[in-house]
């Protein structure tokens, strides 16, 4: 680091002026505004307050806090963050602390060194934006603060103040010139699969998806979320809508209100799957949901790479899904699963907590003599014929929830129907379990793929029948066939309970959304999903060769050198000054004289040169002197009359054209 620069930045001449501070405040305000959704309200509010404080202190230097007050404020702010996040120092808390400290830094910013330090911190804050959200909107929103911040930095490097257009234009130009190298780095910089260290717990708090248990209200809450769960691209034709059951966790264990997955320690046997008919091949792009489930169409025949099947044929990945992943799979809709139940499976699939729901047990007593199929039909018939209503806002159930639901409220969502159905079956002595997952999906005609949203979350039942194995029974279909045939928007047609995008009305909005989603899908695939695997896959496809890490580095370096050379050429070449018409004609005249070795010396004016030229070319004396005088008249006279000007120019043009110097 050069010594001189250090000394100069510390000298009092490097005190900031008002303009500097206004620029810095504006940049930080913009960054704060974009970060607002990621910060608790009190953090945004106090940052606003500190910013306003600094703003008023620009004109009233006495308002600047002294060192002790600042230290106290920093301590208080740190404590407040600690309390606000209950001691959990993860992603959210670090951001809040960083933002607060950056704004507090403003309150001691007097010199250029503090100013640049704050700008560098602010750049870092822009980068942090993507920890929370990587949508196209966030990407677009990151551009204005980058330009403003760069302009702010340019501002401080200048000697004399320039207007805001100059600063913003230069900042934009610098950033634009940086784009080519950025693109090369983005595509070719070797992507390292993370994480490098433990990731704070709250890093994935925003992700939603199916849980590992089922309680009343779980799925209907999820249904209110219109975000995409996954997208499916089928290789051939699509299965009919009523076959689109996307299998997730299977729940065996009933405990009051709650249904759970069986403990691994029980050691249930792997069920055997037999399939017939044609296979459906497809690729799923699963949004991160911070759990292990890999959703697959009932019934998958092969576990996707990086995952495996549980004994009850739901697919799980080895790692929680914390970034968007893509996997290919194949499924059959005609299948037989687990034809014979073992002893443990038998016990677990009939398990019920004792002493609950007496009215339900009372009801199934009369079913004792019926066959398994008849018991199922009896239950479905009950749902179909009695006034059961499919709704997202069922009444709250307390003790003996199945009793209350079946005999009193009769209003519920898929989870109510699935759990009460499985309860009925088990009470009637039929092995049954709940399967959670998603049902249906919306075809995007633009991209020819299926969008499955969180609002398509669903729960259904599987009953084990002698000789047939686990058979899927969807009691919701008995209550609301539209839910299964046409999706949730049809089932809850005239209700505004559903999120806007899961609803059937507003066709134009829907169409616009589908267009947007297909762009978003490509964004997800190509920009956000561009990881180590995708990078090699893409580059191998592009070059037709198998590339290694060293190739990547080689091509990256080569491309950067080339782009830098090109950029340097455009930056360093001398841009010719634009000549006005008179100058252009004068240049012709100079070229003519140059042929006879007459050139103006540096600093020699037109008239001086002309008289010198006239002396050595006496035969052209008249012409040369006339040219020089009319050129001077055009260049330097205050003549504002355009008519006179153009007359002189015409005269100059003809004079120069007529000047034909013959070499002696």
């Amino acid at each position, binding site marked *: 680091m050069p010594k001189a*620069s250090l000394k100069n930045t510390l000298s009092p001449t490097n005190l900031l002026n008002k303009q500097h501070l206004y620029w810095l405040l504006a940049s930080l305000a913009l960054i704060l505004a974009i970060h607002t959704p990621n910060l608790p309200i009190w953090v945004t509010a106090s940052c606003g307050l500190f910013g306003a404080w600094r703003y008023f202190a620009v004109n009233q230097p006495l308002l600047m806090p002294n060192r002790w007050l600042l230290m106290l404020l920093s301590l208080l702010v740190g404590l407040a963050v600690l309390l606000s996040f209950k001691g959990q120092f993860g992603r959210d808390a670090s951001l809040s602390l960083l933002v607060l400290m950056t704004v507090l830094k403003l309150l001691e910013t007097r010199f250029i060194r503090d100013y640049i330090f704050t700008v560098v911190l602010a*750049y*870092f804050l822009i980068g942090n934006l*993507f*920890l929370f959200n990587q949508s196209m909107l966030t990407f677009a929103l990151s551009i204005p603060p980058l330009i403003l911040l760069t302009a702010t930095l340019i501002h401080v490097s200048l*000697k004399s103040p320039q207007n805001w257009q100059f600063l913003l234009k230069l900042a934009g130009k610098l950033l634009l010139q*940086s784009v080519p190298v950025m693109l090369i780095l983005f595509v070719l910089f070797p992507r390292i699969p993370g994480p490098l260290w433990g990731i704070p717990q709250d890093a994935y708090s925003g992700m939603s998806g199916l849980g590992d248990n089922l309680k009343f209200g779980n799925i209907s809450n999820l249904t209110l979320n219109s975000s995409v769960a996954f997208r499916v691209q089928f290789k051939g034709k699509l299965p009919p809508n009523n076959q689109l059951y996307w299998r997730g966790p299977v729940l065996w264990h009933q405990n009051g209100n709650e249904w759970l997955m069986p403990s691994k320690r029980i050691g249930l046997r792997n069920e055997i799957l037999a399939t017939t008919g044609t296979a459906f091949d497809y690729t799923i792009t699963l949004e991160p949901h911070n759990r292990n489930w890999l959703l697959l169409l009932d019934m998958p025949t092969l576990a996707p790479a990086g995952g495996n099947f549980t004994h009850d044929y739901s697919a799980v990945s080895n790692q929680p899904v914390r970034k968007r992943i893509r996997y290919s799979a194949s499924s059959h809709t005609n299948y037989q699963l687990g034809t014979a139940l073992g002893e443990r499976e038998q016990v677990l699939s009939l398990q019920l907590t004792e002493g609950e729901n007496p009215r339900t047990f009372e009801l199934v007593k009369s079913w004792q003599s019926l066959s398994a199929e008849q018991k199922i039909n009896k239950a479905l018939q009950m749902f179909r014929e009695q006034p059961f209503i499919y709704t997202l806002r069922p009444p709250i159930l307390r003790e003996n929830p199945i009793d209350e639901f079946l005999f009193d409220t009769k209003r519920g969502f898929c989870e109510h129907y699935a759990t009460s159905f499985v309860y009925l079956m088990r009470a009637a002595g039929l092995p049954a379990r709940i399967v959670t997952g998603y049902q249906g999906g919306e075809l995007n005609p633009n991209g020819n793929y299926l969008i499955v949203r969180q609002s398509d979350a669903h729960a259904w039942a599987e009953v084990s029948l002698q000789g047939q194995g686990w058979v899927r029974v969807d009691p919701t279909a008995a209550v609301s066939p539209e839910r299964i045939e046409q999706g949730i928007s049809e089932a809850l047609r005239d209700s505004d309970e559903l999120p806007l995008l899961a609803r059937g009305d507003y066709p134009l909005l829907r169409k616009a959304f589908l267009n947007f989603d297909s762009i978003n899908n490509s964004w997800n695939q190509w920009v956000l999903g561009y990881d180590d695997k995708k990078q090699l896959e893409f580059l191998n496809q592009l070059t037709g060769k198998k590339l290694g890490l060293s190739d990547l580095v080689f091509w990256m370096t080569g491309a950067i050198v080339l782009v830098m050379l090109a950029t340097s050429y455009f*930056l360093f070449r001398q841009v010719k000054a634009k000549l006005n018409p008179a100058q252009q004609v004068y240049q012709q005249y100079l070229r003519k004289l140059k042929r006879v070795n007459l050139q103006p010396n540096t600093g020699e004016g037109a008239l001086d040169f002309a008289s010198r030229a006239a002396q050595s070319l006496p035969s052209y004396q008249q012409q040369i002197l006339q040219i020089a005088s009319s050129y001077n008249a055009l260049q330097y006279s205050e003549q504002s009359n355009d008519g006179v000007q153009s007359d002189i120019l015409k005269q100059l043009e003809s004079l120069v054209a007529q000047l034909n110097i013959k070499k002696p």
Partner: protein
Amino acid sequence: MASVSLFKPRYFTADYWKKWFRVASSHDNIATLNPRQIYILPTRWGILYAVMLILLLVGSINYAISLGYYVTFLLASLGNMAMLHTWRNLVHLQITTLPASTVFAGEVLQMQLQIADTKNRARYAIAAQFEDNTVVREDIAAYGSQTFLVPLQTQQRGWQTLPRIKLYTEFPLMLFHAWAYVQNPQQVLVYPKPSAGSTSPPLSNIGQTGGKNHVARGDEDFDGHKTYQIGDAPSRVDWKASSKGVGMLSKQYSGDGSAILLLDWAQTSDLAFEARISQLTRWVIDAHAAQQHFGLRLPRLTLPPNNTETHYHEALKALALLD
């Protein structure tokens, strides 16, 4: 001595390395910065920026954030562009050194540089300084030229070789420091530092031609004001008039034109060598201010009495070069 150089080898000192830098030298007082003479290094802000980029990159890898890579790479590329722009802001500048005016030792010499752009692009915040002296910063218009008044603190009397001038810039992002050195073979004459006291010169027995009362300083009659010039005796400064905000004024007296003063080296024999020169310089200045005729007798040179400007400078030059 050996042990000293062991603990502090000469290449640890900044000066040792300085001679390895290429320097743009002036011909006919004009120097042009060619690409080979430009040096560039990150500033401490550049280093801070790089650390920030590394943190962003590590974060992006750890959290697998694709757009984190985008910001990291865009900002890295921006830093790189800033480097090109900083370098480009300095290269191909043409520096013309104008003849320097003379000063007395210990005063600040204002070196006049005419720095011009030759590449049709405006240059911003170009800084010039003699090392360890104050920095001047100016903008230069495209194809334009700008005068820089670069101060240099003088120490010694006599012919001084100008130290090299450092030109540098950190425009546009302050992340890089590009610099170049310009050497000018021009030498500057620095007059001796006048002594502070205003002891009047002892009247010499030779050279008193006038018959009147020979008050050497010739301050009989107040004749008006002139603007203060370096070297004017403090006693001459009209503090009262100066306080009116018109700048420093010195009192001008019309001396007795016929009074001739002979300033002799021998008259200062009770002083040390440099002090003698300073004392004589003071007398010369005072005599000149009073428009008095004076002669100067030095060990190997004698200037006959006169009161012209040329004579005054000749006298000061003789004193400056006395050894």
